[in-house]
């Protein structure tokens, strides 16, 4: 089974709120000092899913695609170190500030150029813009079925059986191949590459494709960003005092009663 995994490099989503800064005029996030960008946390899970499917299937190739600046090579290397076979970095100054909708178009073109994919795996959302639109977008552009928020994926005859996480439980679906599946955190922990694998990954090929290589012009944004800012947080907390935990508990209960909360 030939599988393509799309991975995005993003600012660390666990960046402490105090280190998170926005340049409101430029409508951009200012990279936090000393906090390196990471692979979008769902994307190693998508890579893990690809590796398990390939193993179970006993053959095929896993190609990792990332669209981003030159540093996004690290996101690809991480997937290669996990065990993926080849990488493609889509990098072009023309793509420097494209949005999720334009990204979907570029990824769709790259997926076609790689060719011959039975399955395309992505994360349920990228934890920078928290949009979760690229899987559906690539699906529409390529005319493929899209199964989102997967916690389990298995090859089933000519197709897949996927368990999805719903708002109020789980759903099992069967999908034909080729298809796009987006993976959620419920999938479980991805494997962590060992030093030896990291060194082996250095030898794997990463092609670099430009906008011209893909033959696309992503055009203007369909949904322009008008403003980006940080919400104001006020703190008015009352710390409940007491000499013992029991006394604190009693004092809290009384405060809650006074505030008509119990």
């Amino acid at each position, binding site marked *: 089974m030939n599988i393509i995994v799309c991975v995005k490099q993003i600012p660390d*989503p666990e*960046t402490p709120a105090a280190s*998170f800064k*926005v340049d409101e005029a430029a409508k951009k*996030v200012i990279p936090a000092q000393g906090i390196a960008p990471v692979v979008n946390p769902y994307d190693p899970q998508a890579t893990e899913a690809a590796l398990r499917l390939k193993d179970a299937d006993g053959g095929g190739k896993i190609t990792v695609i990332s669209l981003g600046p030159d540093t996004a090579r690290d996101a690809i290397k991480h997937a290669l170190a996990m065990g993926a076979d080849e990488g493609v970095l889509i990098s072009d100054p023309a793509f420097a500030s494209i*949005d999720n*909708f334009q990204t979907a178009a570029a990824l769709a073109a790259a997926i076609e150029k790689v060719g011959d994919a039975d399955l395309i795996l992505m994360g349920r*959302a990228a*934890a*920078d*813009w*928290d949009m*979760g*639109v690229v*899987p*559906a*977008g690539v*699906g*529409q552009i390529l005319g493929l*079925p*899209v*199964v*989102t928020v997967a916690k389990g994926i298995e090859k089933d005859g000519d197709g897949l059986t996927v368990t999805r*996480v719903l*708002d*109020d*439980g*789980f759903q*099992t*679906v069967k*999908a*034909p191949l080729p298809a796009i599946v987006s993976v959620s*955190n419920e999938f479980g922990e991805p494997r962590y590459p060992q030093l030896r694998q990291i060194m082996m990954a250095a030898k794997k090929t990463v092609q670099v494709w430009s906008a011209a290589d893909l033959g696309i012009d992503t055009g203007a944004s*369909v*949904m*322009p*960003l*008008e*403003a*980006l*800012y*940080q*919400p104001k*947080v006020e*703190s008015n*907390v*009352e*710390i409940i005092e007491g000499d013992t*935990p*029991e006394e*604190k*508990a*009693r004092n*809290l*209960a009384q405060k*809650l*009663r006074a*505030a008509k*909360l*119990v």
Partner: protein
Amino acid sequence: MAGILVVAEKNEGEITPASFELLGAARQLADQGGGSVSALIAGSAADASTLIAHGADAAFTSAAPEDSLAEVLLPAVEAAVSQSGADIVLISMSSLGRDLGPALAFRAKSGVAMDCTALAIEGGKLRATRSCYGGNARAEHTWAGGLQIATVKAKTYDALPADGGRSGAVSAIDAIGEARIKVVGVEKATAEGVKLEDAEVVVSGGRGLGDPSGFQSLETLAGTFKQAAVGASRAACDLGWYPPSQQVGLTGKVVSPNLYIAVAISGASQHMAGMGGAKNIVAINRDADCNMVKVSRFAIIEDYKKVLPALIEEIKKLG
């Protein structure tokens, strides 16, 4: 502004609360922009009338099954857009809406703002505010010209009370998409008692509980209130201590109870995204500097194991 189409949904035979919230939002926007509100539902004519009573001017029904996936419902949504002439589409940020919004947007060669927390009409156009960067930032968007599509976060808008005096046209839409993806099984989470989203009091636990047994104490604490449910942080759910259906946050449930008691939860922005609307927050945490303590109204700085039994007793006494 020409008009708004609301995509309403049913779950287990009932129109979802979020659908009524969307109608409330649409009415506010229509008042600002002067257009009409239509609604689409995979349901009956009676469902359509219910939507009209709650704020729609006209409604469309689709015979697609209530639990259809986005690819099946999409053609009906497109037909409703063209028949109503709507230039704005509002969709719930539900399991279905999460798929439907982007699919519709790419088909219409336009964009969708996901999980919006505020909507406004400015100069006849939609302006949508959404949270991003895990809740650390807010983004505001407009549309370059195409269909303006937004999925709306639960509990962002209030539903309007039903007004039986309202009337409007109801029409059936036949368009239906091919089901390439087949649903072969569903396992509903069986949360006993009050649903998390409806609870007046939510008691949530995090990684700091240390082990799953901590949730038993939280269930006991919740049991001392009338309309209470137990929630969890993603860290706790990922550890397998509590089911994912009870997760609160960006990728979990949105709750807006009168009282939210956060036990051993640090208050990461992604968790806040699900409970920032709580009217009163109480934090029980060992760390006075953590974000949950900062945003709360009352906080106890202590090992939760030492406070919880006493707190349960004290609240019972007040009972």
